[in-house]
């Protein structure tokens, strides 16, 4: 087995938060005595990532994704556990580590607001000690991939959100990092810009072999980029494996879509084959237990005969799988 680029062992982060009830009395009491509570943002997770992998890091808001990325980039000290990235302990923030790593947060800016990005790139070139020829080559590639030609000479504050995100990407990658942590890189962007950023990340990974750990609430990002996903919830690891197997592991059902002829979809009673979840434009969608799905599909073909125009058996959409995982967790937590 090759040496992992990212190795995390029992990583834990507990925050102590101050709580107070609403109202004047509670406010006055809080002056004297504060109620503090420990929150386990990350409750002991373990995983390893090999060189060149693009891994999706999934979980609902507050699951501990950003906290984990901050620990792995070196911004947070963990409460317990170990992590090594490129052989370094991230939170020691050694220059040799910082030079090979980037953390890009979709909702944060690291560029100087008042000057064109081209000048910020120069500053970053010097800070990261990027030789001139490498700088020109990298910047040229980033400019092509991200179509930055028109953008880098305008002050950053004059750029739109999508334009700014593109130059943020370039700024974060100017040192050609071997590891990139991307926290919601497409947040707030329109569909076409999301597609471009996705294409860029995939191409960047292909060209440079960089290892990428990515969080996103847009499942399209994950489907387009990640063959492997790590799912966390309440700070705990729920799943770590191929994206393709996530549905099999987490959703014990398949979706059968039957297209019927002559408007039969509106009236046909298909409840005997599975749970009918939708009927529209000649199509009926059924939810069927995974193990018996092939048999039910065969029965549908046999029994509907010429009334059946088309039939498909698929895994549920990844959004649905993820939503199911998290809502079941919530139910589990409540009971």
């Amino acid at each position, binding site marked *: 087995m090759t040496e992992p680029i990212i190795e995390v062992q029992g990583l834990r982060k507990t925050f102590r938060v101050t709580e107070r009830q609403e109202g004047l009395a509670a406010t006055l009491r809080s002056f004297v005595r504060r109620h503090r509570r420990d929150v386990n943002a990350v409750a002991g997770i373990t995983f390893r990532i090999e060189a060149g992998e693009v891994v999706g890091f999934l979980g609902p808001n507050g699951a501990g994704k950003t906290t984990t990325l901050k620990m792995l980039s*070196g911004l*947070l*000290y963990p409460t317990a556990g170990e992590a090594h990235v490129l052989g370094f302990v991230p939170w020691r923030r050694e220059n040799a580590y910082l030079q090979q*790593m980037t953390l890009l947060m979709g909702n944060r800016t*690291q560029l*100087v607001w008042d*000057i064109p990005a081209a000048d910020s790139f120069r500053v970053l070139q010097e*800070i990261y000690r990027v030789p001139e020829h490498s700088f020109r080559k990298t910047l040229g590639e980033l400019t092509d991939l991200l179509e930055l030609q028109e953008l880098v000479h305008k002050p950053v504050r004059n750029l739109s959100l999508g334009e700014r995100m593109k130059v943020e990407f370039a700024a974060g990658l100017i040192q050609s990092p071997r590891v990139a942590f991307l926290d919601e890189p497409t947040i707030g962007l329109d569909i076409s810009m999301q597609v471009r950023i996705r294409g860029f990340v995939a191409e960047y990974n292909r060209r440079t072999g960089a290892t990428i750990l990515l969080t996103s609430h847009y499942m399209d990002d994950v489907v387009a980029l990640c063959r492997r996903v790590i799912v966390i919830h309440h700070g705990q690891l729920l799943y770590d494996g191929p994206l393709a197997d996530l549905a099999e592991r987490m959703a014990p059902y398949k979706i059968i879509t039957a297209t019927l002829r002559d408007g039969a979809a509106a009236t046909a009673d298909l409840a005997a084959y599975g749970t009918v979840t939708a009927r529209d434009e000649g199509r009926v969608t059924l939810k069927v237990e995974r193990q018996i799905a092939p048999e039910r599909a065969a029965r549908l073909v046999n029994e509907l005969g010429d009334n059946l125009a088309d039939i498909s058996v698929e895994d549920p959409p990844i959004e649905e799988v993820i939503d199911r995982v998290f809502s079941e967790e919530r139910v589990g937590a409540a009971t």
Partner: protein
Amino acid sequence: MIEIYRALFVGQIQAASQYRVQSVLWMLFSVIRPVIFLAAWVAVANAQGGQVGSYDVRDFAAYYVALSLVSNLATSWNAYDFEFEIRMGRLSPKLLRPLHPIHYAVVENIVWKMTTIIPMLIVLGFVAATFDARFRSTPAHLALFVPSVVLGASLAFLAGWVVATTAFWTTRVHAVSTLWDRAAFIFAGQIAPLALLPGALQTIALVLPFGYMLGVPAEILQGAVDVPTAMVLIVVQAVWVGIFYALLQVVWRVGVRQYTGVGA
């Protein structure tokens, strides 16, 4: 490091050029307070037959002109910026670069001083002429003024960072820095030349670091102290710089640990 500073300077000068008018207004604002004190002391001196202690009207004029210049060269605003950076999450990207965040602030301070020094000198020339300022400084004083103002600026800068790092523990560093500024107002020589402070206050002022930031370089430039005394004061300035440098190393290390411990 020279290349890094050159790149930071270029960027900062460009950023500053976006705010030329604002810079000049801030500079004028920084002159108003000393001029008000100058006018007040001139009134007091005139009411007492032209003299307060060892200062006459023209000495006051020289002192406050020198103090305005030193304030411009030695004051820094890190504490205010720092609170903002922490609250808005701007410090985090800086912590993840292989360069200590203090270097950005050094460059910001120097560029601010560079962009305001020319209009400052014009305004101060006008004030000096209006109040007929009398400088008693010799060439030796002028030579000593250079290290003294550099040390004063270094001391104010380092002390400002030490105060600013309280933002790691409280997001309301503004209150701490305001308290610090009020103390500086009394003990740095802004309200009156250190030599004119009442006995106890003068002793306190000489023990505290504030006077070594502004008052001491101003008095050396004005020629209010003799050369041997000026040299002793410069040594004390250097000691204070050393103390605050060491203090900053400690509070920065502990502060960053705190910051990255509770949530960056």
